[in-house]
């Protein structure tokens, strides 16, 4: 059996969320790799949109530390201003977005701003970036994070990027948010999914080598488990080869 890191598995799982033909709002870090993997495998006509002001088809030829790095600009389909990229998302033309999070709650709301009271926070996190925009405007989105009890919490103390709000069905529509909101939380231990129409996350698959008990222990709420719980498919050889081609030194996936 080929060995792989938790990050490599997360990238592979994230890449499978991308359908062929999708316009993907690609976030930083692991999603950049997920896009590259999908594009080289099952989504050869997907396009990537980057908030810095870029649209691409082929993944960049060189390593990317940020989406604005020169290899991501060379060969772009469009180099423009950020508000133009946001315009497409505001029109509902972005099929899938990725958002990183420090904290997520059972309804998929993300906090990347403040732990504790915003006036005197225990931890000041960097902020929204484009996260809140993706959360409100993209058709559907996925978040990736390390699975720890302090990160997967009952309720986030600050909603930077709204998911399914208070968890009641139709919360997003009632509050004027576009799109279907979060569809999956991909963690280092498993994949949590949401019911159609919004609501509470449940464990849909557990990664190879991990147990449901462990996932529950590391989750800050009474986690529901899908009746048809599966084991997450391990990264294929082709997926791993693609990941290692775009992250040759393991900057994102082996640290």
């Amino acid at each position, binding site marked *: 059996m080929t060995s792989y890191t938790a990050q490599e598995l997360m990238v592979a799982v994230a890449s499978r969320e991308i359908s062929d033909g999708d316009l993907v709002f690609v976030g930083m870090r692991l999603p950049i790799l997920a896009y590259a993997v999908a594009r080289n495998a099952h989504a050869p006509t997907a396009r990537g949109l980057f908030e810095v002001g870029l649209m691409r088809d082929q993944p960049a030829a060189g390593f990317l530390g940020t989406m604005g790095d020169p290899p991501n600009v060379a060969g772009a389909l469009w180099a423009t201003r950020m508000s133009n990229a946001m315009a497409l998302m505001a029109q509902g033309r972005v099929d899938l977005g990725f958002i990183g999070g420090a904290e997520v709650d059972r309804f998929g709301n993300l906090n990347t701003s403040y732990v504790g009271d915003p006036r005197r926070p*225990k931890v000041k996190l960097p902020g929204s970036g484009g996260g809140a925009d993706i959360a409100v405007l993209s058709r559907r989105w996925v978040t990736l994070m390390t699975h720890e009890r302090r990160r997967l919490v009952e309720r986030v103390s600050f909603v930077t990027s709204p998911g399914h709000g208070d968890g009641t069905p139709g919360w997003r529509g009632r509050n004027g948010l576009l799109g279907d909101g979060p569809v999956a939380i991909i963690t280092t231990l498993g994949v949590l999914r949401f019911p159609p129409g919004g609501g509470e996350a449940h464990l849909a698959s557990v990664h190879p080598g991990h147990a449901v008990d462990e996932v529950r222990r590391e989750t800050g709420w009474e986690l529901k488990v899908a009746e048809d719980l599966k084991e997450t498919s391990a990264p294929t050889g082709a997926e791993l080869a693609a990941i290692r081609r775009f992250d040759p030194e393991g*900057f994102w996936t082996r640290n």
Partner: protein
Amino acid sequence: MAQAIERFVPDGASVALGVALEPMIPFAAGHEMIRQGRRDLELVGPISDTLFDQLIGAGCARRVTAAWVGNVSEGLGHCYRRACEQGVPRSLEVHDHSNFSISLALWAAAWNVPSLPTRTLLGSDILRTNPGLSATDGLVHVQAVRPDVTIVHVQRADELGRAHAWGPLGITEEAGLAAERVIVTCEEVVAPEVTLSDPNRIIFPETKVVAVVHEPGGAHPSPVQGHFQRDHAFYREYAAQSRSVEGFGAWLRKWVLDVPDRAAYLRQIDLDSVRIKHHLPSTPADYGYD
């Protein structure tokens, strides 16, 4: 550079920086503000890849109006954390935005209207902590943000203020139009014949530009298309050193306070290791007219 900062960035000014997001961040200009001991600045920008963190750590800022402050490839901004969590070296007022809303706030100022409506940020608590954002009737109203000065680093400009930039522009255009004045720092100063040969590539009206500073390498460690790659290792080292107040102090002395200018800073690094070697010029556009 010293003259431009001295003259156009007074204490208490609202300054937009890093408006192209990760590329072309005017680090040399920011470092000059630190050297001159600027105080009480309002820092305006979308994401700030360590420059805001450095200005905050050096005690230059009273307010941050931004979507994100940290280190894009490494994560948290340690000086930003210390300022918000402990008031070190001083407390900081934060006006949170998203990338889209800070763009709209600048467009509102550019178009001289009090606010612009959008759907973004509906359902976000950012509406609770930023007094410049409010929601009514299913729309968020983003109040105008009007910087006193916007500072950009670009590939080339002429002495009369016509700046050419290429690659993704982030919120560069709205930041320039919204600001009272613009300072341009550049890799190359070129003749007006060069800039005027491609007016579509001029990013601001020359009437906004008050200073053009020839500052090659002035965006290091951020990338400049056609000139420099991003210096990832430099960001990593900053993240490690700025973790403690003492480490940040040592970093600041080495790279800012103990160097007189950018040329001296550049002598401490191997700029050739990030210099772009394979060039890909575009095909010129034909502006023929008769």
